[in-house]
């Protein structure tokens, strides 16, 4: 069996064109340059930063009782984005993480839900997912007590230093 036949069989009907592209061995474009990658990461950090701010109460429509995500989820602890999609008893079905966020907004926070496709929801996900980076994706129930994520110092992501106060990196815990 030739390579192209194998590819055709693997992709099934309509796979001829795809096989032709793969078999050609030509990339659509050259890999991103360091500069382009830096720009893309900056765009991500911008979203993460918006998410961080919203997480701590900068979007008034998210609550009518003053509560923010950060009240119960410092450093996004126990928001568990890596466990979604999962079954939620409140809905009686499997849902995505943004739906969990909207549940919290509408119930404990008595606010207005956010469009899951909006930049705002993307920002909340960007913040929570960024802090959970490196943690294995594990769809399903987290029935046990979940620990917070380790955040060494600062906000946990690249951001201009405030120049205020004492960063937690300056504090050496005293041995107990």
């Amino acid at each position, binding site marked *: 069996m030739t390579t192209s036949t194998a590819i055709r069989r693997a992709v099934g009907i309509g796979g001829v064109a795809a096989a032709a592209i793969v078999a050609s061995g030509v990339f659509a474009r050259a890999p991103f340059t360091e500069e382009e990658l830096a720009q893309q990461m900056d765009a991500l950090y911008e979203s993460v930063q918006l998410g961080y701010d919203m997480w701590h109460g900068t979007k008034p429509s998210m609550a009518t009782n003053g509560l923010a995500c*950060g009240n119960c989820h410092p450093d996004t602890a126990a928001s568990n984005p890596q466990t979604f999609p999962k079954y939620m*008893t409140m809905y009686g079905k499997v849902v995505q993480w943004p739906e969990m966020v909207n549940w919290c907004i509408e119930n404990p926070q008595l606010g207005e839900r956010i469009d899951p496709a909006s930049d705002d929801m993307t920002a909340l996900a960007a913040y929570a997912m960024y802090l959970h980076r490196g943690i294995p994706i594990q769809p399903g129930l987290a029935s046990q007590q979940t620990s917070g994520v380790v955040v060494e110092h600062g906000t946990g992501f690249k951001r201009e230093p405030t120049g205020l106060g*004492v960063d937690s990196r300056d504090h050496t815990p005293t041995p107990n």
Partner: protein
Amino acid sequence: MSEVNKSRRDFLAFSGRAGMATLVAQAVGINLGIVDVVRAESGGKLDPFRFAIISDAHLYSMDNHKFDQQLIDAVNKVNAMSPKPDFVLFGGDVAQNGTEDQLVKGKEILSKLEMPMHIIPGEHDWYLDMGDAWRGLFGDETWSFNHKGVHFIGLNSILVRDFWTEAGLSPKERMTVMEMLESPIPGPWGVHEQQLEWLANDVKDLGPGTPIVIFTHSPLWDYYPRWNFQTSDAPEIREILSKFDNVMSYHGHVHQTLYNRIGNMSSVAAMSTSWPWPYPPVELAFPETRMNRADPSIATDGQGVQIIDLNNEFQGLVQYKPFEDSLTPFMQDGFTV
């Protein structure tokens, strides 16, 4: 056997005995959740008594906010206890944003307690006006008193270095910075020099057998400094109190069940009446004192009050009394080894 293992074994042994007490209590229809028995080797006998702890109400300014009712529920729970506690300690954070209306509302609700109350401040009470309204309503934040042979001490553990003057922050901006648990700005807080001197002076004439209970907002050990689950000068406090046979430390701030023991000091956390906090990413010396994961669909899960019974040998039976069934079997029924 290491010191840690030894204290752990003692802890488990006493918890086992506590378990029997629980069964008796349950037989008469009182549902007790047992976390821990704290032991002291006190030379002198004391009159047995009980006190309760309510903590971290985080009241907002809105009328009929759900946290108002949760604090009312806590007050009712304590008033309904039988026998009644001699007094109540409030563990700080009456208010969420430190405004006078929130503190006044808290005082009003807490005034329904049918026993005296002693209170220390939390950071949410303090940083809008640097404690002016709080002091006006509740008095000194540093205090001690004797009750039936036990020396109780309260300290203000939420003092931070001045980060606001040079930066030109408004009082509201300063408060907002302090409201965030994981705020990178204020850094670790503590009781600072003046209170350390006060403490040294307060206990200087007390004999080593004196039963000591010390009460602060934050724990007197390095649990998780990033969330200020610590008091920066706790080592100095423990040093000042090291001459005593046994010291019990009770604290708020962490919004969860928790026990630890360092040297002569046992440390017990209070549940909040507002919301539970997740356990931080550190190992606990006594992981069996962790409560169940709170169910977000039950608004009062993972919250409650606590009661401590001191016997005549300064042994304390600590019982969490959650609003919902938040306790693991270890905490509900005790533990035998």
